């Protein structure tokens, strides 16, 4: 007869009704009994008879009351409140324990949250626009692989033939723009975008308007620009007359029509922030390497907004069909074409692979730190559990259920870790600031658009992490604490630690030490790598400056461009404080060009058998400027120019490859189909990771290069100064600007800054490992100290007896220290083995040092053991202070 579970309306109704007070219920029962007495008296009973009769008829009053109380829907809430109040009281009563616990958790959780914010930025974060959840990236694949950009005609085809997107926009988000306004030139980053771009992103202009569809129809007809809020503030002093203003972008006249919203920095996180947007019809201003309207010029990234009713999978399916149609129509260009539609999240896809590796490493490292923090907490709680045995026993004896007790202990750890988590957010913001600092400047200059920071996702993650850690360390310790020996502890004796819980505590400490040593070895390896990077091979970055001169951006042809460069270099070298200067096509850190080389008569049959080497085109005195030794022969000089025989300089590795006895001078080498005579052998550049062998490298003469196909590549001019580099930068800029103020100077920075940027991931990994290593060391040392101190307090009586029987203080101290050192050594041994197995994961971040470098291993073990010894000494000393008389009277 289950019908009494009644109508829903009734239930809902009572949810909002104020709960009935217990006193009200008691009063009702009292009233009932009075009424019953009255009735009985009416029937002729006396008062003395009526009262007990009424009571009897009622039955058990207490039972009724209890039933009322238990049926109370908020019982669990009352218990929780009770637990929280009690927990807070207990934590307040032990400020030392609470302080260490909260600090440990804040550090562990904060560090993890900081690393998570990095992961969040890379993979999860959405654009700061309305309804960003329906935005997708569209890329091309070739034979099912990769992420490639699309050509403009292909974009138009997808845009006009799909039914999945409410709109599909295209952008080229990293266009170097030389902005000339109020007679001042400045290099900024621009985005070339289709007119519907802002509509897809659901943006409203901060001021003015965005592009009209008709402005994006006829090439080169409507030079209009939208500028960023930041640029408006910085360059136009937030002026009200900015709309309609004329500016020069790469030498072309544009009119400002609008200002983008304040927090909008472009639609491609991972590339520099966009300061100016121009319509796709003006593509020739923003992109020069191929004609952006041709089908073979694939430079566009697509952003689509899914229709509300379209699922991602359906959009993908439709785009697959369209890609297949394109492939059929243009088999020569679009063979193997595919399309991939992914939610628009995180940073640009190809920024992810490198940073993703770092993120994994940092996650692993911070995971170890968090584990150490948790085991530390578990250890602390175990110790406290011992101290609380009496309290727990009393509560058990008074009838508290074990479940309720465990719940109580878990509530306490939950409070602890929520407080720790809240404080951890402070730690996290430090970490995030540190992290973001590595991403301020991009290789091409300009702030990189990555919004590393706290957001709701990170906050939620931190919360969840706090709860999980609380349960993790709480569960290790709670069952132990809730199972004391009632008889012993009620008698008031602190029973000596049970062997099981001691073993658990020792294991926790050794595990902490093991994890710390793994991290410390990582720290050692990375610190050595960073030092190697900045040291270079005879390559002193502190006196070097590089400037990127870009006459081509303002329409110089090849010859005019060369004249400009030569004049600039002549004036630079004439400056006091400048030692030498030389142009180069790529910066000195070898990520420049590449070319296939072979000996005369040994031309490779196909691309598979080609020997591809690094390549840079450099001017006279390049090696002198850089400070890289020429081992044999000479470097380029003024006599090497157009019309004289083509010359080349090779590095050691390349020389060894072809002429095994190092006898390369005078030999002929074909590079890119043109013969060159080798006139010098240079020392290997040293920037290669421990996993990669030094790359073969060829240097060709900057002034001899082939200009028949046009292609006036702008140069990176390298300048060696005699003093420190950064104060010289303004002087150098001014000298170049004196030749022609219109020519943009970009990437003007010291070589140290170049190295900072190029080896960002290594430096970042190293910095964070150092922090994590220090944290791990600190936490595990606290853990070790805790365990030893506890042991000493437990064994006070034993020590007293020993000393009464004639043991010296030093004997007792030795016992304690031995224990500490034994624990540390056990952990260190495990850690060394673990590190030996896992150091290779760092290999791609190690420069000039092998993953199993013994110095790193020995140093880490040394630091850890030394700290362990020092830390063991403190409780050991306390043990020697035991007064046998006091100790024996103690219990």
């Amino acid at each position, binding site marked *: *007869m289950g*019908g*009494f579970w*009644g*109508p829903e*309306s*009734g*239930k809902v*109704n*009572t949810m909002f009704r104020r709960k*009935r007070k217990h006193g*009200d*219920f008691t*009063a*009702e*029962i009292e*009233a*009932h009994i*009075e*009424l*019953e007495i*009255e*009735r009985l008296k009416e029937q002729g009973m006396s008062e003395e008879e009526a009262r007990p009769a009424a009571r009897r*008829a*009622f*039955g*058990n*009053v207490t*039972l*009724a009351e209890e*039933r*009322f109380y238990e*049926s109370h*829907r908020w019982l669990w809430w009352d218990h929780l409140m009770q637990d929280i109040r009690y927990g807070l009281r207990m934590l307040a009563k032990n400020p030392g324990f609470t302080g260490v616990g909260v600090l440990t958790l804040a550090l562990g959780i904060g560090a993890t949250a900081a690393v998570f914010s990095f992961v969040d930025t890379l993979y999860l974060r959405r654009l700061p626009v309305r309804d960003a959840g329906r935005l997708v990236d569209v890329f091309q694949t070739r034979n099912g692989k990769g992420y490639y950009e699309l050509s403009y005609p292909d974009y138009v085809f997808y845009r006009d033939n799909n039914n999945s997107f409410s709109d599909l926009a295209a952008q080229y988000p990293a266009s170097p723009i030389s902005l000339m306004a109020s007679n001042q030139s400045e290099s900024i980053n621009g985005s070339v975008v289709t007119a519907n771009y802002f509509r897809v992103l659901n943006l409203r202009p901060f001021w003015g308007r965005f592009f009209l569809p008709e402005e994006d129809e006829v090439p080169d007809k409507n030079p209009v620009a939208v500028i960023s809020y930041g640029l408006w503030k910085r360059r136009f002093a937030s002026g009200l007359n900015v709309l309609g203003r004329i500016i020069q972008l790469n030498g072309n006249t544009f009119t400002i029509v609008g200002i983008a919203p304040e927090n909008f920095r472009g639609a491609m996180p991972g590339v520099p922030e966009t300061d100016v947007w121009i319509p796709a019809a003006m593509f020739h201003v923003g992109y020069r390497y191929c004609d952006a309207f041709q089908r073979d010029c694939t430079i566009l990234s697509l952003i689509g907004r899914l229709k509300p009713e379209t699922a991602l999978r359906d959009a993908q399916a439709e785009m697959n069909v369209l890609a297949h149609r394109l492939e059929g129509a243009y088999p020569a260009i679009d063979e193997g074409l595919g399309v991939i539609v992914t939610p628009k999240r995180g940073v640009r896809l190809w920024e992810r692979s490198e940073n993703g590796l770092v993120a994994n490493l940092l996650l692993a490292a911070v995971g170890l730190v968090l584990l150490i923090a948790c085991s530390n907490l578990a250890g602390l709680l175990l110790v406290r559990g011992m101290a609380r045995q009496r309290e727990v026993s009393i509560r058990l004896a008074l009838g508290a259920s074990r479940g309720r007790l465990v719940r109580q202990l878990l509530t306490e750890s939950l409070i602890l870790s929520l407080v720790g988590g809240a404080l951890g957010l402070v730690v996290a913001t430090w970490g995030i600031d540190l992290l973001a600092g590595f991403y301020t400047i991009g290789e091409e200059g300009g702030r990189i658009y990555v919004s590393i920071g706290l957001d709701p996702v990170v906050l939620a993650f931190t919360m969840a992490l706090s709860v999980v850690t609380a349960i993790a360390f709480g569960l290790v310790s709670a069952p132990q604490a809730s199972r004391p020996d009632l008889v012993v502890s009620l008698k008031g004796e602190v029973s000596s630690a049970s062997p099981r819980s001691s073993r658990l505590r020792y294991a926790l400490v050794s595990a902490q030490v093991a994890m710390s040593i793994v991290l410390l070895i990582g720290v050692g390896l990375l610190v050595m790598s960073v030092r190697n990077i900045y040291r270079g091979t005879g390559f002193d970055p502190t006196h070097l400056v590089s400037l990127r001169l870009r006459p081509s951006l303002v329409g110089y042809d090849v010859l005019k461009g060369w004249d400009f460069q030569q004049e600039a270099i002549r004036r630079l070298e004439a400056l006091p404080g400048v030692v030498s200067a030389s142009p180069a096509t790529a910066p000195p850190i070898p990520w420049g060009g590449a070319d296939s080389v072979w000996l005369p008569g040994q031309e490779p049959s196909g691309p598979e058998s080609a020997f591809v080497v690094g390549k840079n085109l450099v001017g006279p005195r390049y090696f002198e400027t850089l400070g890289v030794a020429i081992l044999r022969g000479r470097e380029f000089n003024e006599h090497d120019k157009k019309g004289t025989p083509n010359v080349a300089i090779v590095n050691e590795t390349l020389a060894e490859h072809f002429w095994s006895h190092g006898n390369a001078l005078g030999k002929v080498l074909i590079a890119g189909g043109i013969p060159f005579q080798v006139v010098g052998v240079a020392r290997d550049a040293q920037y290669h990771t421990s996993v990669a062998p030094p790359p073969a490298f060829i240097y060709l003469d900057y002034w001899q290069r082939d200009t028949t196909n046009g292609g006036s590549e702008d140069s990176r001019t390298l300048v060696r100064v005699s003093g420190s580099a950064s104060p010289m930068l303004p002087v150098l800029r001014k000298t170049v600007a004196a030749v022609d103020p219109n020519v943009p100077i970009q990437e003007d920075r010291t070589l140290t800054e170049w190295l900072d940027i190029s080896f960002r991931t290594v430096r970042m990994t190293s910095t964070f490992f150092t922090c994590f290593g220090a944290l791990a060391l600190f936490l595990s040392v606290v853990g070790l100290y805790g365990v030893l101190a506890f042991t000493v307090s437990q064994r006070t009586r034993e020590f007293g007896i020993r000393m009464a029987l004639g043991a010296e203080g030093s004997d007792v101290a030795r016992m304690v220290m031995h224990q500490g050192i034994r624990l540390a050594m056990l952990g260190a041994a495990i850690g060394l083995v673990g590190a030996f197995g896992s150091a290779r994961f760092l290999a791609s971040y190690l420069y000039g040092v092998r993953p199993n470098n013994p110095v790193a291993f020995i140093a880490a073990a040394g630091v850890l053991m030394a700290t362990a010894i020092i830390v063991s000494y403190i409780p050991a000393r306390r043990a020697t202070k035991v007064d046998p008389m006091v100790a024996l009277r103690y219990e």
Partner: protein
Amino acid sequence: MELLQGTLDLLILRTLIFGRQHGQGIGRAIQQTSEDELLIEHGALYPALQRLEERGWIAAEWGSSANNRKARFYTLTPAGRKQLVRETTKWQRLSAAIGRVLGPGVRES
């Protein structure tokens, strides 16, 4: 005679159909109308009243009894009235069915 599980709720609702009543009055009324066949432990009445109130079938307020004593009075809500009809029908069908199974009279032999 002991009450069958669940029937107390039905009896309370049935009693309240005549108007508002306090707990003691409800108990007495049930006892009287059943001609003292059904004995209710008064203590059991109150958790039942509490349960019915929580489900919204009865409403309660404090008031004064006939001889001017403070008591908590219960009234039937519209939802409670519907519930009463539903449960009464169900009960009648059940008792009729049991009656049919048991037959017209079983004598002890």
